Protein backbone atom coordinates (compact mmCIF):
# COMPACT_ATOMS: atom_id res chain seq x y z
CA UNK A 1 0.00 0.00 0.00
CA UNK A 2 1.20 3.53 -0.78
CA UNK A 3 2.38 5.29 2.40
CA UNK A 4 0.14 8.27 1.63
CA UNK A 5 -2.90 5.99 1.48
CA UNK A 6 -2.10 4.78 4.96
CA UNK A 7 -1.76 8.33 6.27
CA UNK A 8 -5.03 9.25 4.57
CA UNK A 9 -6.77 6.24 6.16
CA UNK A 10 -5.56 7.22 9.60
CA UNK A 11 -6.71 10.80 8.94
CA UNK A 12 -10.18 9.68 7.88
CA UNK A 13 -10.38 7.52 10.96
CA UNK A 14 -9.23 10.38 13.19
CA UNK A 15 -11.63 12.88 11.60
CA UNK A 16 -14.50 10.44 12.01
CA UNK A 17 -13.67 10.02 15.68
CA UNK A 18 -13.43 13.80 16.20
CA UNK A 19 -16.80 14.28 14.54
CA UNK A 20 -18.33 11.56 16.64
CA UNK A 21 -16.88 13.03 19.82
CA UNK A 22 -18.13 16.51 18.93
CA UNK A 23 -21.80 15.64 18.62
CA UNK A 24 -21.98 12.71 20.99
CA UNK A 25 -24.28 12.91 23.97
CA UNK A 26 -22.96 11.68 27.30
CA UNK A 27 -23.45 7.97 27.88
CA UNK A 28 -26.05 7.24 30.52
CA UNK A 29 -25.33 3.89 32.18
CA UNK A 30 -28.76 3.89 33.84
CA UNK A 31 -30.53 4.10 30.48
CA UNK A 32 -28.27 1.61 28.70
CA UNK A 33 -27.90 -1.01 31.42
CA UNK A 34 -30.33 -3.21 33.28
CA UNK A 35 -27.57 -4.82 35.35
CA UNK A 36 -25.59 -3.27 38.17
CA UNK A 37 -22.15 -3.20 36.55
CA UNK A 38 -19.21 -2.21 38.77
CA UNK A 39 -17.72 1.27 38.26
CA UNK A 40 -14.70 -0.13 36.48
CA UNK A 41 -13.35 -3.45 35.24
CA UNK A 42 -10.30 -4.56 33.31
CA UNK A 43 -9.13 -7.80 31.70
CA UNK A 44 -5.41 -8.23 32.34
CA UNK A 45 -2.92 -9.68 29.92
CA UNK A 46 -4.52 -9.14 26.51
CA UNK A 47 -1.58 -8.48 24.15
CA UNK A 48 -1.47 -5.44 21.85
CA UNK A 49 -0.71 -6.53 18.29
CA UNK A 50 -0.04 -4.14 15.40
CA UNK A 51 -2.41 -5.28 12.67
CA UNK A 52 -1.39 -5.76 9.05
CA UNK A 53 -3.48 -3.77 6.55
CA UNK A 54 -7.17 -4.81 6.73
CA UNK A 55 -6.41 -7.55 9.28
CA UNK A 56 -8.35 -6.05 12.19
CA UNK A 57 -10.62 -9.14 12.36
CA UNK A 58 -7.88 -11.81 12.41
CA UNK A 59 -5.79 -9.61 14.73
CA UNK A 60 -8.67 -9.36 17.22
CA UNK A 61 -9.05 -13.15 17.33
CA UNK A 62 -5.26 -13.60 17.60
CA UNK A 63 -5.12 -11.18 20.55
CA UNK A 64 -7.91 -12.98 22.41
CA UNK A 65 -6.44 -16.43 21.71
CA UNK A 66 -2.94 -15.33 22.78
CA UNK A 67 -4.47 -13.92 25.98
CA UNK A 68 -5.87 -17.42 26.61
CA UNK A 69 -2.42 -18.92 26.04
CA UNK A 70 -2.55 -20.07 22.41
CA UNK A 71 0.46 -19.80 20.12
CA UNK A 72 -1.10 -18.12 17.09
CA UNK A 73 -0.52 -15.17 14.76
CA UNK A 74 -2.87 -12.87 12.85
CA UNK A 75 -1.72 -14.54 9.62
CA UNK A 76 -2.78 -17.96 10.95
CA UNK A 77 -6.27 -16.63 11.64
CA UNK A 78 -6.42 -14.64 8.40
CA UNK A 79 -5.93 -17.84 6.39
CA UNK A 80 -9.22 -19.10 7.88
CA UNK A 81 -11.16 -15.85 8.12
CA UNK A 82 -9.99 -13.08 5.78
CA UNK A 83 -11.66 -12.38 2.40
CA UNK A 84 -9.08 -10.60 0.21
CA UNK A 85 -11.67 -9.55 -2.40
CA UNK A 86 -13.79 -7.84 0.25
CA UNK A 87 -10.75 -6.29 1.95
CA UNK A 88 -12.05 -7.46 5.29
CA UNK A 89 -13.42 -10.25 7.42
CA UNK A 90 -17.11 -11.21 7.47
CA UNK A 91 -18.90 -11.64 10.80
CA UNK A 92 -19.70 -15.28 10.02
CA UNK A 93 -16.02 -15.95 9.28
CA UNK A 94 -15.05 -14.45 12.64
CA UNK A 95 -17.23 -17.09 14.31
CA UNK A 96 -16.29 -19.91 11.93
CA UNK A 97 -12.53 -19.36 12.11
CA UNK A 98 -12.61 -19.25 15.93
CA UNK A 99 -14.38 -22.61 15.92
CA UNK A 100 -12.00 -24.10 13.37
CA UNK A 101 -9.26 -23.09 15.80
CA UNK A 102 -10.99 -25.08 18.54
CA UNK A 103 -12.45 -22.14 20.47
CA UNK A 104 -15.86 -21.62 22.02
CA UNK A 105 -17.35 -18.68 20.11
CA UNK A 106 -20.70 -17.11 21.03
CA UNK A 107 -22.23 -13.82 19.96
CA UNK A 108 -23.44 -11.15 22.34
CA UNK A 109 -25.50 -8.10 21.39
CA UNK A 110 -25.96 -5.56 24.12
CA UNK A 111 -24.19 -3.42 26.72
CA UNK A 112 -25.36 -5.61 29.61
CA UNK A 113 -23.59 -8.61 28.14
CA UNK A 114 -20.49 -6.66 27.10
CA UNK A 115 -19.87 -5.18 30.55
CA UNK A 116 -20.79 -8.40 32.37
CA UNK A 117 -18.31 -10.39 30.26
CA UNK A 118 -15.53 -7.85 30.83
CA UNK A 119 -16.35 -7.86 34.56
CA UNK A 120 -16.12 -11.67 34.49
CA UNK A 121 -12.61 -11.32 33.04
CA UNK A 122 -13.35 -12.10 29.38
CA UNK A 123 -12.15 -9.83 26.56
CA UNK A 124 -14.91 -9.21 23.98
CA UNK A 125 -14.42 -8.70 20.25
CA UNK A 126 -16.68 -5.89 19.00
CA UNK A 127 -17.68 -4.87 15.48
CA UNK A 128 -17.67 -1.12 15.02
CA UNK A 129 -18.33 1.39 12.31
CA UNK A 130 -15.74 4.10 13.02
CA UNK A 131 -17.14 6.18 10.16
CA UNK A 132 -20.70 7.16 9.32
CA UNK A 133 -23.72 5.24 8.12
CA UNK A 134 -23.17 6.56 4.58
CA UNK A 135 -19.37 6.40 4.80
CA UNK A 136 -18.68 3.29 6.83
CA UNK A 137 -15.26 2.46 8.21
CA UNK A 138 -15.76 -1.06 9.53
CA UNK A 139 -13.46 -2.21 12.25
CA UNK A 140 -13.00 -5.00 14.79
CA UNK A 141 -11.47 -4.30 18.17
CA UNK A 142 -11.21 -6.04 21.53
CA UNK A 143 -12.81 -4.42 24.58
CA UNK A 144 -10.53 -5.08 27.57
CA UNK A 145 -11.99 -2.73 30.16
CA UNK A 146 -14.03 0.33 31.05
CA UNK A 147 -14.29 3.01 33.70
CA UNK A 148 -17.58 4.84 34.29
CA UNK A 149 -15.97 7.47 36.50
CA UNK A 150 -13.41 8.46 33.89
CA UNK A 151 -16.01 7.86 31.13
CA UNK A 152 -13.63 5.60 29.22
CA UNK A 153 -13.79 2.32 27.30
CA UNK A 154 -10.46 0.55 26.68
CA UNK A 155 -9.81 -1.35 23.48
CA UNK A 156 -6.96 -3.27 21.91
CA UNK A 157 -7.68 -2.03 18.45
CA UNK A 158 -4.96 -3.27 16.11
CA UNK A 159 -2.38 -0.68 17.18
CA UNK A 160 0.46 -0.86 19.67
CA UNK A 161 -1.19 1.81 21.82
CA UNK A 162 -4.31 1.02 23.76
CA UNK A 163 -7.32 2.83 22.33
CA UNK A 164 -9.32 4.88 24.82
CA UNK A 165 -12.82 6.00 23.81
CA UNK A 166 -15.43 8.01 25.66
CA UNK A 167 -18.48 5.83 26.39
CA UNK A 168 -20.72 7.88 24.10
CA UNK A 169 -18.29 7.58 21.17
CA UNK A 170 -17.89 3.88 21.73
CA UNK A 171 -21.66 3.46 21.99
CA UNK A 172 -22.19 5.19 18.64
CA UNK A 173 -19.51 3.25 16.81
CA UNK A 174 -20.78 -0.02 18.26
CA UNK A 175 -24.44 0.82 17.58
CA UNK A 176 -23.53 1.30 13.89
CA UNK A 177 -22.19 -2.25 14.05
CA UNK A 178 -25.58 -3.40 15.41
CA UNK A 179 -24.03 -4.09 18.82
CA UNK A 180 -22.35 -7.20 17.44
CA UNK A 181 -19.91 -8.73 19.87
CA UNK A 182 -18.13 -12.07 20.07
CA UNK A 183 -16.86 -13.91 23.12
CA UNK A 184 -14.05 -16.27 22.14
CA UNK A 185 -12.84 -18.57 24.92
CA UNK A 186 -10.95 -21.85 25.23
CA UNK A 187 -13.48 -24.70 25.61
CA UNK A 188 -12.77 -25.22 29.32
CA UNK A 189 -14.25 -21.81 30.13
CA UNK A 190 -17.84 -20.61 29.83
CA UNK A 191 -19.14 -17.14 28.93
CA UNK A 192 -20.83 -15.29 31.79
CA UNK A 193 -23.91 -14.06 29.96
CA UNK A 194 -24.99 -16.42 27.20
CA UNK A 195 -27.74 -19.01 27.52
CA UNK A 196 -27.19 -22.73 27.98
CA UNK A 197 -28.66 -23.37 24.53
CA UNK A 198 -26.22 -20.93 22.90
CA UNK A 199 -23.28 -22.74 24.49
CA UNK A 200 -24.72 -26.15 23.54
CA UNK A 201 -25.09 -25.02 19.92
CA UNK A 202 -21.53 -23.67 19.94
CA UNK A 203 -20.34 -27.06 21.17
CA UNK A 204 -22.28 -28.88 18.44
CA UNK A 205 -20.73 -26.47 15.93
CA UNK A 206 -17.27 -27.59 17.14
CA UNK A 207 -18.30 -31.16 16.28
CA UNK A 208 -19.35 -30.02 12.82
CA UNK A 209 -15.94 -28.50 12.08
CA UNK A 210 -14.38 -31.74 13.41
CA UNK A 211 -12.78 -30.08 16.44
CA UNK A 212 -13.76 -33.13 18.48
CA UNK A 213 -11.20 -32.65 21.28
CA UNK A 214 -12.46 -29.11 21.84
CA UNK A 215 -16.07 -30.35 21.66
CA UNK A 216 -15.37 -33.05 24.29
CA UNK A 217 -13.83 -30.44 26.62
CA UNK A 218 -16.74 -28.04 26.11
CA UNK A 219 -19.36 -30.77 26.69
CA UNK A 220 -17.57 -31.75 29.90
CA UNK A 221 -17.41 -28.10 31.00
CA UNK A 222 -21.10 -27.62 30.23
CA UNK A 223 -22.05 -30.86 31.98
CA UNK A 224 -20.33 -29.62 35.15
CA UNK A 225 -22.24 -26.34 34.94
CA UNK A 226 -25.64 -27.82 34.00
CA UNK A 227 -25.52 -31.40 35.39
CA UNK A 228 -29.26 -32.11 34.95
CA UNK A 229 -29.42 -31.68 31.18
CA UNK A 230 -28.88 -34.94 29.27
CA UNK A 231 -27.92 -33.09 26.06
CA UNK A 232 -24.39 -32.41 27.40
CA UNK A 233 -23.80 -36.14 27.96
CA UNK A 234 -25.36 -36.93 24.59
CA UNK A 235 -23.00 -34.50 22.84
CA UNK A 236 -20.07 -35.83 24.89
CA UNK A 237 -20.92 -39.37 23.80
CA UNK A 238 -21.13 -38.36 20.15
CA UNK A 239 -17.86 -36.40 20.23
CA UNK A 240 -16.01 -39.21 22.01
CA UNK A 241 -17.39 -41.66 19.46
CA UNK A 242 -16.04 -39.45 16.67
CA UNK A 243 -12.61 -39.63 18.34
CA UNK A 244 -12.83 -43.43 18.43
CA UNK A 245 -13.27 -43.55 22.21
CA UNK A 246 -16.10 -46.13 22.23
CA UNK A 247 -15.96 -46.89 25.96
CA UNK A 248 -15.96 -43.20 26.83
CA UNK A 249 -18.88 -42.69 24.44
CA UNK A 250 -20.80 -45.53 26.06
CA UNK A 251 -20.21 -44.11 29.56
CA UNK A 252 -21.46 -40.67 28.53
CA UNK A 253 -24.51 -42.02 26.69
CA UNK A 254 -25.38 -44.17 29.70
CA UNK A 255 -25.28 -41.06 31.88
CA UNK A 256 -27.52 -39.32 29.34
CA UNK A 257 -29.97 -42.24 29.51
CA UNK A 258 -29.91 -42.13 33.31
CA UNK A 259 -30.76 -38.42 33.24
CA UNK A 260 -33.71 -38.98 30.88
CA UNK A 261 -34.62 -42.57 29.93
CA UNK A 262 -37.32 -41.42 27.48
CA UNK A 263 -35.13 -39.96 24.72
CA UNK A 264 -35.05 -42.19 21.59
CA UNK A 265 -31.92 -40.49 20.21
CA UNK A 266 -29.96 -41.41 23.34
CA UNK A 267 -31.11 -45.04 23.26
CA UNK A 268 -30.40 -45.36 19.51
CA UNK A 269 -26.85 -43.99 19.82
CA UNK A 270 -26.17 -46.07 22.93
CA UNK A 271 -27.34 -49.21 21.11
CA UNK A 272 -25.16 -48.24 18.15
CA UNK A 273 -22.05 -47.83 20.31
CA UNK A 274 -22.77 -51.02 22.24
CA UNK A 275 -23.17 -53.02 19.05
CA UNK A 276 -19.80 -51.72 17.81
CA UNK A 277 -18.20 -52.64 21.11
CA UNK A 278 -19.75 -56.12 20.93
CA UNK A 279 -18.90 -56.65 17.27
Amino acid at each position, binding site marked *: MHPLTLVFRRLVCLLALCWLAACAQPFDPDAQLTIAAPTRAAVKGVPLIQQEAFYCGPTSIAMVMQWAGADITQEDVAALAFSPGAGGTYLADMIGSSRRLGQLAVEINDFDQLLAEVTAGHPVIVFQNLGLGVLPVWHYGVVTGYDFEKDEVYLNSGQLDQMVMAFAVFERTWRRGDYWGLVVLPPDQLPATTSETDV*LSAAAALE*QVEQYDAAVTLYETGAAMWPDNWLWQFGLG*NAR*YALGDLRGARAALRRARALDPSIP*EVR*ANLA*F*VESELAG
Partner: protein
Amino acid sequence: MSILSLSKKGIAIALSAQLVLATQAITMAQAEMLGTDQAINKYTALANRNALMDELQRAEIQAEIVALGIDPAEAEARLAALSDAEIATMLTQMENDSAGADVVGTLFTIFVILLVTDLLCLTRFFNFTRCIR
Protein backbone atom coordinates in the same frame (compact mmCIF):
# COMPACT_ATOMS: atom_id res chain seq x y z
CA MET B 1 -56.93 -79.12 12.83
CA SER B 2 -56.63 -77.31 9.51
CA ILE B 3 -57.92 -74.14 11.08
CA LEU B 4 -55.39 -74.50 13.83
CA SER B 5 -52.51 -75.12 11.43
CA LEU B 6 -53.65 -72.18 9.27
CA SER B 7 -53.68 -69.90 12.24
CA LYS B 8 -50.25 -71.18 13.28
CA LYS B 9 -49.01 -70.49 9.79
CA GLY B 10 -50.58 -67.04 9.94
CA ILE B 11 -48.91 -66.32 13.23
CA ALA B 12 -45.60 -67.54 11.85
CA ILE B 13 -45.90 -65.28 8.82
CA ALA B 14 -46.92 -62.34 10.93
CA LEU B 15 -44.07 -62.94 13.35
CA SER B 16 -41.43 -63.33 10.68
CA ALA B 17 -42.69 -60.23 8.90
CA GLN B 18 -42.46 -58.37 12.17
CA LEU B 19 -38.97 -59.69 12.73
CA VAL B 20 -37.87 -58.51 9.30
CA LEU B 21 -39.41 -55.10 9.88
CA ALA B 22 -37.89 -54.82 13.34
CA THR B 23 -34.45 -55.82 12.08
CA GLN B 24 -34.78 -53.27 9.28
CA ALA B 25 -35.82 -50.59 11.74
CA ILE B 26 -32.79 -51.30 13.91
CA THR B 27 -30.46 -51.38 10.89
CA MET B 28 -31.86 -48.03 9.75
CA ALA B 29 -31.43 -46.51 13.18
CA GLN B 30 -27.89 -47.82 13.36
CA ALA B 31 -26.72 -46.63 9.96
CA GLU B 32 -25.01 -43.76 11.76
CA MET B 33 -24.91 -41.93 15.08
CA LEU B 34 -27.70 -39.37 15.44
CA GLY B 35 -26.28 -35.84 15.47
CA THR B 36 -26.05 -33.61 18.53
CA ASP B 37 -27.14 -30.51 16.61
CA GLN B 38 -30.54 -31.90 15.54
CA ALA B 39 -31.20 -33.18 19.07
CA ILE B 40 -30.40 -29.75 20.55
CA ASN B 41 -32.77 -28.00 18.13
CA LYS B 42 -35.55 -30.52 18.61
CA TYR B 43 -35.49 -30.75 22.40
CA THR B 44 -34.81 -27.06 23.03
CA ALA B 45 -37.82 -26.16 20.91
CA LEU B 46 -39.88 -28.72 22.81
CA ALA B 47 -38.75 -27.36 26.21
CA ASN B 48 -39.52 -23.78 25.11
CA ARG B 49 -43.00 -24.78 24.01
CA ASN B 50 -43.67 -26.57 27.31
CA ALA B 51 -42.41 -23.58 29.30
CA LEU B 52 -44.85 -21.24 27.52
CA MET B 53 -47.71 -23.70 27.91
CA ASP B 54 -46.94 -23.80 31.65
CA GLU B 55 -47.06 -19.99 31.77
CA LEU B 56 -50.43 -20.11 30.08
CA GLN B 57 -51.78 -22.34 32.86
CA ARG B 58 -51.04 -19.76 35.58
CA ALA B 59 -54.19 -18.36 37.23
CA GLU B 60 -53.42 -14.70 36.50
CA ILE B 61 -52.75 -15.44 32.84
CA GLN B 62 -55.94 -17.48 32.58
CA ALA B 63 -57.86 -14.54 34.09
CA GLU B 64 -56.35 -12.16 31.50
CA ILE B 65 -57.26 -14.51 28.69
CA VAL B 66 -60.87 -14.74 29.86
CA ALA B 67 -60.96 -10.94 30.30
CA LEU B 68 -59.90 -10.59 26.66
CA GLY B 69 -62.86 -12.74 25.69
CA ILE B 70 -60.70 -15.66 24.55
CA ASP B 71 -61.46 -19.23 25.53
CA PRO B 72 -58.35 -20.58 27.39
CA ALA B 73 -58.43 -23.66 25.17
CA GLU B 74 -58.36 -21.39 22.12
CA ALA B 75 -55.38 -19.52 23.61
CA GLU B 76 -53.53 -22.82 23.85
CA ALA B 77 -54.37 -23.58 20.23
CA ARG B 78 -53.01 -20.18 19.22
CA LEU B 79 -49.80 -20.77 21.12
CA ALA B 80 -49.48 -24.17 19.49
CA ALA B 81 -49.81 -22.48 16.09
CA LEU B 82 -46.63 -20.44 16.59
CA SER B 83 -43.40 -21.61 15.00
CA ASP B 84 -40.38 -22.72 17.09
CA ALA B 85 -38.60 -19.49 16.19
CA GLU B 86 -41.54 -17.33 17.27
CA ILE B 87 -41.77 -19.18 20.57
CA ALA B 88 -38.04 -18.74 21.17
CA THR B 89 -38.41 -14.99 20.50
CA MET B 90 -41.29 -14.74 22.98
CA LEU B 91 -39.30 -16.56 25.65
CA THR B 92 -36.30 -14.28 25.12
CA GLN B 93 -38.58 -11.26 25.53
CA MET B 94 -40.01 -12.73 28.71
CA GLU B 95 -36.55 -13.41 30.11
CA ASN B 96 -35.54 -9.84 29.33
CA ASP B 97 -38.57 -8.48 31.18
CA SER B 98 -37.17 -8.28 34.67
CA ALA B 99 -40.48 -7.90 36.52
CA GLY B 100 -42.70 -10.96 36.75
CA ALA B 101 -45.82 -8.93 35.98
CA ASP B 102 -44.43 -8.24 32.50
CA VAL B 103 -44.83 -11.89 31.57
CA VAL B 104 -48.54 -11.22 31.21
CA GLY B 105 -47.78 -8.24 28.99
CA THR B 106 -45.41 -10.17 26.76
CA LEU B 107 -47.77 -13.08 26.33
CA PHE B 108 -50.43 -10.68 25.15
CA THR B 109 -48.16 -8.59 22.99
CA ILE B 110 -48.12 -11.49 20.59
CA PHE B 111 -51.91 -11.58 20.47
CA VAL B 112 -52.16 -7.83 19.88
CA ILE B 113 -49.41 -7.85 17.25
CA LEU B 114 -51.03 -10.71 15.41
CA LEU B 115 -54.39 -8.95 15.66
CA VAL B 116 -52.95 -5.86 13.98
CA THR B 117 -51.05 -7.80 11.33
CA ASP B 118 -54.25 -9.74 10.66
CA LEU B 119 -56.10 -6.48 10.09
CA LEU B 120 -53.35 -5.38 7.71
CA CYS B 121 -53.75 -8.62 5.74
CA LEU B 122 -50.20 -9.67 6.59
CA THR B 123 -51.35 -12.66 8.63
CA ARG B 124 -54.51 -14.65 9.16
CA PHE B 125 -54.18 -15.69 12.75
CA PHE B 126 -57.57 -14.92 14.23
CA ASN B 127 -60.76 -16.24 12.74
CA PHE B 128 -62.82 -13.16 13.59
CA THR B 129 -60.65 -10.60 11.77
CA ARG B 130 -61.59 -9.13 8.42
CA CYS B 131 -58.60 -7.57 6.81
CA ILE B 132 -58.73 -4.03 5.43
CA ARG B 133 -57.85 -3.87 1.76
